[in-house]
C-alpha cells in the first residue's frame, strides 16, 4: 500500500477538507509523487502541462518585443546611400501607398548609420544601445508581408493571416508545448498601463483554440492580473474560510459527478488562482532587482522607465518558466508609436528614446544570466515604410519590405540576412515571409510547423498553412 501512489480522490479523503489539499495534490503530481490515474487522462484536464514538441528544442521561451506602427527600415536598419543621393527626385516607379495624396518623391534618411560589432552591422544613430549588442543580433532586412494597413498586417505577424479570428502565435506555442510554471499562464501580455495598442486584445486572441491559450494581460502597475485580489478586502481568516468552504462544496459535488474532467479542471483553477495571488505578485515585484539591473533597463529615467519595466518583467517571467511573453511599446506619442506619417525626425527619435535602451538591456541581462541561449527575443513591427516622402517629413506604410531583429534561442548573432532594392522599397535577396519567420521560430522551439495542427470545423488548421503559403524554415538565420 505504501508503494502505491495516492490517487487525487484518496488524498482528498485522507487529508479531509483543507483548501490547500488540492494544491498539495498538484505539487505532488508535479514532483512525480502522485499517480496520474485519478486525474482524467484527457489532456483537457491539464491543458498547460509542459510537454515536448516534435523535435529537439533549441529554445524554451519567446519574448516578443512588438513594435507596432511599422518601424522605418531605411532610417533604422537598412542604410540606403542611393536614396540619400537621389533625395527629392521622383521614384522611378509608382510605389504602392496607403494614404491618399502621396507624392512619389524620394526622401533620404536624415539619420547617420555606422558599422557595429565584429560583423560590421550597419545601424542607425537612433539605436546606440541595440548597436552595442550587434553581435548578438540577427538582422533580417528582407522581410515582406501581405497587407499595408495596421490591423491586417498585425494580424498577419501575430496569427499568420491578414484576416481575423485565428489564434495568435503565442497561443499556438502554448497549445503545442504547455508551459513550465503551472502557477502562471503560458502566454502573458505586458502593455502600457495607459491603454491598448492597435487591434488591442485581438492581437493575443486564441481564436478557435481553447481559451486557456489566449494571452493573459499582466499589468505593469497596480494589481498584476485582473481580479487577482478581492475588490472588497476581508480579514485573512475570513477569506481563507470562504475558500475552504467553496473547495469543500465543490469536492462534494465532484463526488456526485465522478470523472468529469471539466469540473476537476475548475477545481484545479481555484487552487491555481490562490497560488497566482502569490506567484504573480512575486514575479512582477521589481523591487527585488539590484539597482544595477534597474539602471540597466532605465528604470531611473522617465523616458525609459515604463518600457524598461515591461522588459525587465518579461525577463522575470521567462525566468520563472512562462512560455511566451509579448511586450508592447508605449502609447506615446500614439497607440501606434512607430507610425511616422509625419514628423519622422522627431517622432522616431522619441520612440527610439523609449525603446532602445530597454531592448538592449534585456538582451544583455538575459545573456549575463545564461538565459539567452534558451530564449528567443524578436523585435519587429508589422511592416516597413516607404522611401518616398509623405507630407513634408513622413513615410507611408510599406508591405514590400521591412527589417526585424532576432536574438537568442539559437538565432545567429551578428547575422545580416537579405537585402532590399536601392531605395529599400522592396525586399530583393533572400526574401523572408512572415510564414517563414513563424516556421523558423516554431522550429527552434522544437515544433514541426507542418505538424502543429488543430482540427477546426473539420479542417486541420495550422499557423503557417504551409501548402498555401510555402512556409519554410530559414536555416540561414540559425547558428
Amino acid at each position, binding site marked *: 500500500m505504501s508503494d502505491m501512489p495516492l490517487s487525487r480522490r484518496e488524498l482528498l479523503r485522507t487529508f479531509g477538507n483543507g483548501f490547500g489539499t488540492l494544491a498539495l495534490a498538484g505539487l505532488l503530481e508535479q514532483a512525480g509523487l502522485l499517480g496520474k490515474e485519478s486525474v482524467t487522462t484527457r489532456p483537457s484536464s491539464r491543458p498547460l502541462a509542459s510537454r515536448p514538441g516534435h523535435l529537439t528544442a533549441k529554445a524554451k521561451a519567446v519574448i516578443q518585443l512588438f513594435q507596432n506602427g511599422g518601424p522605418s527600415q531605411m532610417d533604422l536598419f537598412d542604410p540606403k546611400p542611393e536614396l540619400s543621393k537621389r533625395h527629392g527626385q521622383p521614384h522611378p516607379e509608382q510605389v504602392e501607398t496607403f494614404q491618399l495624396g502621396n507624392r512619389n518623391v524620394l526622401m533620404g534618411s536624415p539619420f547617420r548609420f555606422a558599422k557595429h560589432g565584429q560583423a560590421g552591422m550597419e545601424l542607425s544613430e537612433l539605436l546606440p544601445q541595440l548597436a552595442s549588442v550587434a553581435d548578438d543580433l540577427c538582422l533580417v532586412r528582407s522581410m515582406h508581408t501581405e497587407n499595408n494597413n495596421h490591423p491586417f498586417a498585425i494580424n498577419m505577424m501575430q496569427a499568420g493571416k491578414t484576416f*481575423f479570428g485565428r489564434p495568435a502565435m503565442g497561443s499556438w506555442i502554448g497549445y503545442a508545448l504547455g508551459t513550465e510554471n503551472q502557477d502562471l499562464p503560458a502566454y502573458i501580455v505586458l502593455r502600457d498601463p495607459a491603454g491598448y495598442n492597435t487591434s488591442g486584445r485581438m492581437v493575443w486572441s486564441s481564436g478557435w483554440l481553447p481559451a486557456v491559450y489566449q494571452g493573459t494581460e499582466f499589468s505593469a502597475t497596480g494589481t498584476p492580473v485582473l*481580479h487577482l485580489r478581492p475588490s472588497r478586502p476581508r480579514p485573512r481568516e475570513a477569506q481563507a474560510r470562504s475558500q475552504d468552504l467553496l473547495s469543500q462544496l465543490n469536492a462534494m459535488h465532484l463526488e456526485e*459527478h465522478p470523472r468529469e474532467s471539466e469540473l476537476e479542471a475548475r477545481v484545479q*483553477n481555484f487552487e491555481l488562482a490562490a497560488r497566482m495571488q502569490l506567484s504573480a505578485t512575486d514575479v512582477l515585484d521589481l523591487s527585488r532587482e539590484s539597482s544595477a539591473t534597474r539602471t540597466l533597463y532605465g528604470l531611473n529615467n522617465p523616458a525609459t522607465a515604463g518600457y524598461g519595466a515591461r522588459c525587465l518583467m518579461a525577463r522575470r517571467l521567462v525566468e520563472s518558466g512562462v512560455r511566451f511573453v509579448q511586450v508592447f511599446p508605449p502609447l506615446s506619442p500614439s497607440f501606434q508609436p512607430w507610425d511616422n506619417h509625419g514628423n519622422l525626425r522627431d517622432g522616431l527619435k522619441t520612440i527610439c528614446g523609449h525603446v532602445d535602451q530597454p531592448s538592449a538591456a534585456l538582451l544583455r541581462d538575459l545573456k549575463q544570466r545564461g538565459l539567452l541561449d534558451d530564449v528567443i527575443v524578436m523585435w519587429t513591427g508589422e511592416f516597413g515604410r516607404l522611401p518616398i516622402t509623405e507630407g513634408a517629413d513622413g513615410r507611408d506604410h510599406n508591405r514590400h519590405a521591412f527589417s526585424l531583429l532576432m536574438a537568442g534561442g539559437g538565432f545567429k548573432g551578428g547575422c545580416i540576412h537579405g537585402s532590399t532594392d536601392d531605395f529599400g522599397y522592396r525586399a530583393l535577396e533572400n526574401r523572408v515571409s512572415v510564414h517563414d519567420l513563424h516556421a523558423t521560430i516554431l522550429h527552434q522551439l522544437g515544433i514541426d510547423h507542418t505538424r502543429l495542427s488543430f482540427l477546426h470545423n473539420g*479542417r486541420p488548421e495550422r499557423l503557417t498553412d504551409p501548402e498555401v503559403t510555402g512556409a519554410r524554415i530559414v536555416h540561414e538565420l540559425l547558428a
Partner: protein
Amino acid sequence: MKRMISRRFMVATSMILCYALLVLGRHTTRTLGSEESPPPSFEKDILPILAKHCHDCHGGDRQEAKLDLRTLSTLVRGDPGSSLLVDILERGQMPPGKKNKLSPAELLRIRDWVKAGAHAKEKLVALPPRGQVSDKDRLFWSFQPPRKPRVPVVKSADRVRTPVDAFLLARLESKGMTFSAEADRHTLIRRAYFDLVGLPPSPKAVRAFLDDGRKDAYERLIDELLASSHYGERWGRHWLDAAGYVDNRLFDGDLATIYPNDGIWRYRDYVVRAFNEDKPYDRFLIEQLAGDELVDWRRAAKFTTETLDLLSATGYLRSVEDHTSEPQYGIDKRYDVLFGVMETFSTSVLGLTMDCCRCHNHKYDPLPQRDYYRLMACFEPAFNVFAWKRPQERFLADVAPLERATIDQQNAQLDKQVSALQALLKVADKAKDVAGIADLKTRMGMLQAKRRSYGKVQALWDVGRPPASRLMRRGNVNAPGVLIQPGFPEILQPAGTTPFKAASAAGDSSGRRLALARWLTRSDHPLTARVLVNRVWHHHFGRGIVATLGNFGRSGSLPTHPELLDWLAVDFAENGWSIKRLHRQIMSSSAYRQSSRRPPAEAKTSVGERIDPDNSLLWRMNLRRLEAEVIRDSILTISGTLDRQMGGPPVELTTPVDGASEVKTSATGSQRRSIYLFARRVYPLKFLEIFDAPIMPVNCTQRSSSATVLQSLTLLNSEFLFAQSERLASRVLSTAGMKLRAQVRESFQAALSRPPRDAELSRCDGFLADQTRTYAADNKTREQAIRRALADLCHMLVSTNEFLYVE
C-alpha cells in the same frame, strides 16, 4: 482522391478554356457549315477527354512543364496542324505512361473540334451547366434530401415518450445499453429553465413544480416557459451568435472608441420577437434574407409595423465587418464585405464551409469555385461594389422614404426660419432689447420644437442595377475571371434542375435574395432543416447530432444518429417549421429527462462507461456549463436586481484603460439582461468575455466553454460578485431572519434551487457562525457581521461548480 482531383481540374480548366474562347471568339469568324457532320461539342465530347487524361497535371492548380490551359497557347482555332495540343497528343508524347493514352477516336475528336473552331456552347456563363458534380458526390449523406425514416421499435417501450427516444434507444439497445434513470424534479426544473429562458427558477416556482401532482406537470412547465417572453431572449441570443450580431460597425480595434451602428438593435429585437412568436423558421429565413423584397417599401406612403419588421429583419447581414468607411480603401475591401456575408450565411444557415472555394474548388466537398461566386451573385445587387454604400450610409429611416423626404424638407425650412431669427437676435442683443430677446427666444424655441426626427434601421436593400458578377481567380479581386450568373450550389440541387430564376420582388429589386431564400426553404432542401434542428439539439444536449454545427460537409463530423436527424428535419418542415414544437419534441423525451450523473466510482465498469465514455449515444444527459450571459443574468436574478425590460437601444458600457469594462451605472437599465448590453465586436463586457462570450470578427457558429483561472479569479474577487452576493444576502435575511439554519436553507434554495443536504447544512451553519465571529472581532456590529458572513456564504454558493453547470 484521383477522381476528386480530376473533377477539380476539369472545372478549373473548362471554365478557363471557355473564358479564353469567349474572349478570342470576338476576333474570330466562325466557319459555319463547312463540316459534313456536326462538329464535336466541347462539353459532351472534349471536356471528358481532357478531364480524364490531362487535367491532373496541366490544370489550374498544377501546371507541369509550365503548360497552363488557361492560355490558348496550345491551340489555334480552326487549324489543328498548328495546334501544339493536337501535335503533342497525336505524337503520343503526352499523356505519359502506357496506360493513359488517348484512343484514336478520342484523338480524332479533338482534331475535329479544333478544326471546327474550338467552340464551346455557353455564352454568358462560360461553363457547362452540369458536369462538375458527379453522381458519386451526391451519395454523401448531407447532400441527399432528408427522408423520414420509420420510427424503430425498441425493447424498453416504457421509456419511449417521443420518437426521439425510439431512435436513441434503438442504438443504445444494439450495444446492450439503455437510458439512465430520470433526473429528479429539482434537476428537471433547473434544466428546463436554463435551456428555455436562461434564468434560474425562483424558489416559489420550484415549490409549485414539486407540488404539482398532475400527470402532465412537466409538460405544463415546458409550455409555460415557452410562453415566457424570456424564451425569445434566450434563443434569440443563440441565433445572434450565428448571425455575428454586434452593435458597432467597423473593426472595433480600439477599446476607447466605439462606433455605434445606430438602429441595428432593431434586428436584435426582431429576432427576439420572432422566437417568441414562434415565427416559422422558413419565414424567419426569408425575412432575414429578403424582407425588403417582400414589400414595396420604396413607394410606401407610411411604414406599417410589418414593413418596419421586414426591413429590420434584413439586419441579419449587417453585422459583417466593413472597413470601407475609411477612404483609403478601394474595391478589395468592398469585396471583403461580400466574402464576410458569404461566410456568415454559409456557416449559419447552410452548414457548409464555403470559404474555401473563394480561391479554389473545395478540397473536401463537391463545391466548385464557380458555385461560391454564383451564390455570392445573389448578394451582389445589395452589396453592389459598383454603387457602394459605406456602412455609415447604409441605413434606412424608420419612416417611409416619402415621409422622410417631407420631414427633411420641413426641418430645412424650420432651420432657415430659425437662422433668420438668430440674425435678429444678434441685433436685439446689441440693442439690449430685453423684451425683444425674450420674444425671439420663445419663437425660436417653438420652431425648434416643430422639428421632427426619425430613427435608423440597419437594413439591406438592392442598390442600383445588379452589377456583373465575376469569378475571382485564386480569390483575388484584382484578377477577375469569367462572368458568373447567380445560382445555388449544384450539389444541393437535384440533377437537371433548371437554371436560376430571380423571384419577382415587390418593388424595385432584383429578387435574387428572395429566390435564394425560397430555394433555401424548400421542404426537400438537403441542409436547411437539418442544420437548424441540429443547432436546437446542440443547445439542449450540449452536442449536436452532427458535432460540427457549421460544417455538414465531408470534413465535418458524421451524424451520430443520422435517422433521428432526418426524422426530426422532415417532421420539422412538415409541421410548419415550428421551433417551439421542436423544443417540446426534444424536451418531453425520456432522453432529455435522464440524469446526467455517471455511475459511482465503484461501478466504473458500467456498460456506458466502457462502451461509450464520451456519451455520444446519450445513455445519460450531458453536464453543461452555463453560457456567459446566463451566468450574469442568473446572478442578477437571484440577487433580485434583474431589470426585465425588453428591447430598445443597447445599454452602454464603460471603456477603462485596463480593459475591465463594466455596464455604465449611469446608463438606464444597467441591470438588464446581457442580450441588451452593447455588443462589441472585440470588447464585449469583460465579465462576459471571461466566460467565453464570442468576439465577432466573424460570426460564431459554436461557442467554446473554457475553464480558465481568470474565471475563478473573477468569481472570487470581482466587485460584481461581491455586490450581488450582498444583495442576495439581504434578500435571504429578509425571509429567513436571524436563524443560521434558515439562512443556509434559504441561500441554497435561491442559488441552487434545492435545499441543502444534512452535511451541507451543518457545514454551512458552522461556517456562518465562525465567519460572524471573525467579523465581530474585526470591529463590526453583530448585524454587520451576520450580513457579511451570509454574503460570503452566498458568494461561495454562486461560485460553485453546481451553480455554473446545468445537470
